[in-house]
């Protein structure tokens, strides 16, 4: 009796071993083929998410959709396009009648835009990125009434570089895409054309910068 039980037990064990082995081989196949299939479709790092300022419609989803709070998307000013206007539509609330830094006249809800006097009649507008929450109010205003020098960019030192950017998935104008990390920012300046890297060089208009 006992021996039969043992024998059966052994049979069962060997049967289980067999099934397990077969299954293991069957599962190892996709484990090897998937990377083989995807080998052409992967990129070994070197890509970051960025907003194409020309596709962006400044809808405001960047502020709320980013996995980070505050969002990794910040406003930047493309100085070479900026008009340095006294009545900066990105800085001043619509309807503001006095052009000064009074809170009642400012558009930015967090006061992230600093207005510095340069010379008559020019003012420089600098964005304090620590304060900016990427709400894009100023971007919209600058696009509509100004030179469009203010634009949104994903700040790469803040971005956690998700597998799939959450903002990109909801962006109504598909403005967010992966770009090379060698040139992780997209300039608003059309004359500059080529993206700016970590060490921005003032390349002459039309000159192409090679990837470094």
């Amino acid at each position, binding site marked *: 009796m006992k021996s039969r039980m043992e024998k059966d037990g052994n049979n069962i064990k060997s049967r289980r071993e067999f099934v397990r082995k077969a299954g293991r081989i069957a599962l190892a196949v996709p484990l090897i083929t998937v990377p083989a299939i995807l080998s052409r479709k992967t990129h070994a790092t070197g890509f970051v998410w960025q907003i194409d300022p020309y596709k962006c419609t400044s809808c405001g989803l960047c502020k709320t959709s980013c996995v980070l709070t505050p969002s990794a998307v910040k406003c930047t000013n493309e100085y070479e396009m900026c008009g340095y206007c006294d009545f900066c539509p990105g800085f001043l609330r619509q309807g503001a009648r006095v052009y000064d830094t*009074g809170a009642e006249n400012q558009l930015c809800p967090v006061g992230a835009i600093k207005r510095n006097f340069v010379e008559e009649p020019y003012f420089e507008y600098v964005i304090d990125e620590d304060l900016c929450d990427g709400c894009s109010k100023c971007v919209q205003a600058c696009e509509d009434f100004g030179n469009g020098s203010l634009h949104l960019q994903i700040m790469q030192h803040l971005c956690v570089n998700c597998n799939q950017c959450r903002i990109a998935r909801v962006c109504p104008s598909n403005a967010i895409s992966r770009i090379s990390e060698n040139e992780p920012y997209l300039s608003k300046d*059309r004359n500059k054309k080529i993206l700016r890297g970590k060490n921005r060089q003032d390349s002459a208009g039309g000159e*192409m910068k090679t990837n470094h």
Partner: protein
Amino acid sequence: MNLTEKQISLFRTLSIITGIFTMVIAFTMIMSLIQLKSSDPLSSPALAAVYEQFDRDPDNAANAEYVRSLDLVARKAYFTARWQLETGSYLLVIGAALFVLFRWLTYSNEPLIKSKLSPKPVLTETRERNRRYLVISAAAVVLLAVISSFILRPLMPDPGRTRSEKVSATGSAGEIPMPDEINFPFFRGAGGRGIAAGEGYPVEWNGNSGENIRWKIPVPKHGKSSPVIWGDKIFLTGADGSALEVYCIDKNTGNILWTGSGSDFPGASKETPESDQEAGMAVSTAAATEGAVCAIFGNGNLVAYDHTGKLLWGTNLGVPEHMYGYSSSLLIWKDLVIIQYDSDTRLAVIGIDLKSGKIRWETPRRGRAVNSSPVLASFEGIPQVIINGSPEVTAFEASTGKEVWTMPGVKNDVAVSPGYNKNYVYICANYEKLIAIKAGKNPAVAWEDNTYTPDVSSPAATDEFLFISDGTGGVACYDAGSNKVLWENYFSEPFYASPMVADGKIYFLDRKGVMHIVKAAGTYELISQPELGEDADCTPAFSEKRIYIRGVNNLYCISND
């Protein structure tokens, strides 16, 4: 680890303290988060009301003062909430970690759980029960499937209904890609017939002043090939000696997204054939399709890249022996790359599998090597590749490479590609003649003329008109069905680029880079003559309200906005 009673109670107390601490922190943080997300102090109704009040009476200094103070409060609240979240997270992690540690120490001495054991399941019963489940669930699922067919089917929007119009629009051409507004897949556009879809293309620009030039980039290496477009990407080839390159350029920004080599694959030819030194190796225009782009170079290297710059495959078709250098552009039909291969020793049309790079079919051609490019057309429902050879013009079935029809054509040096519309195929050779062929299984010459015989520039035909620009600077519009010249004009510079019809206009680009834009109609009406400011021999590409022109050195994006 054995702990004394005292230690245990200490740890228990500590764990309770840390637990409460963590809970408080977590609670505060959640509250801050809710506050930040739902009732953002910066967009509170109170603040908005104050702003409104201020707007109504902007001269009241007190109002302004009030706005400032309230705004300050709101900002403070906002930044405090943000600060709370940031510091809170660290406290939370530390608190939770300590809590877990103490908790764990507290329990480390506890005896093993002794609970009453439930009776063991009986194997035979388990089997029986699961057998029953299997049968029941099968019945239930089948029932559900039947019900879902009745309930869910009518809910679906019928794909056929909304689709019907679209199908009829594209279906008439019989699987031939119709010009579409976005993609400009081949040399001279979809089918290679010189017609671009879309409207609102610019008619005014100036390459010198930058007017309407959205961007301009220097093309790294020289080439005579024209840009092609798929989606947001422009593809271009360039060569310098035996260094062959494919460029992928962002249509919107002009950034070179990637550069692929045309000779970096096993079996690549490194040879530089002794042909026309001026033209170089990058003369043939690439062809693009969904997910792939193919390019061929003067030494017979054929490469396919995907749109991210990964080499799909590369192959060498043999270095062509050709007096003027190999120059035929590629076509893609479904999953076939179609190559008009012209060499003194091997004259053929070849279909290559786009996925694998293997030859699917090859049909030899008769006559001698030419410089024209094939076009993709459909007559009598057969998608066919038409080649203006010397001395024959021949159509090959795109799927199999079988000859569909052939007839004697032009005999001189042929560099002009065919033009076609729904009835005719137009071929031509310099110093010889222009022939309109009634295409189909029984081809026939419809008419001939020898007034305008371009040497390089290929004709573009709509169903009503045939447009020609020749090597002396002459342009003409023929009636598509007869050899009647409806209008003609003489511009002083010769034409190499082929004319393109788009948005009811015909765009003639001369060798000095001046675009002569004429209304595509039976009477001559010059619209404008914008200058590129650079010599240009390549045929422009049209996509989404923008024109892309390759000059001798630069690639231009011309746009109204």
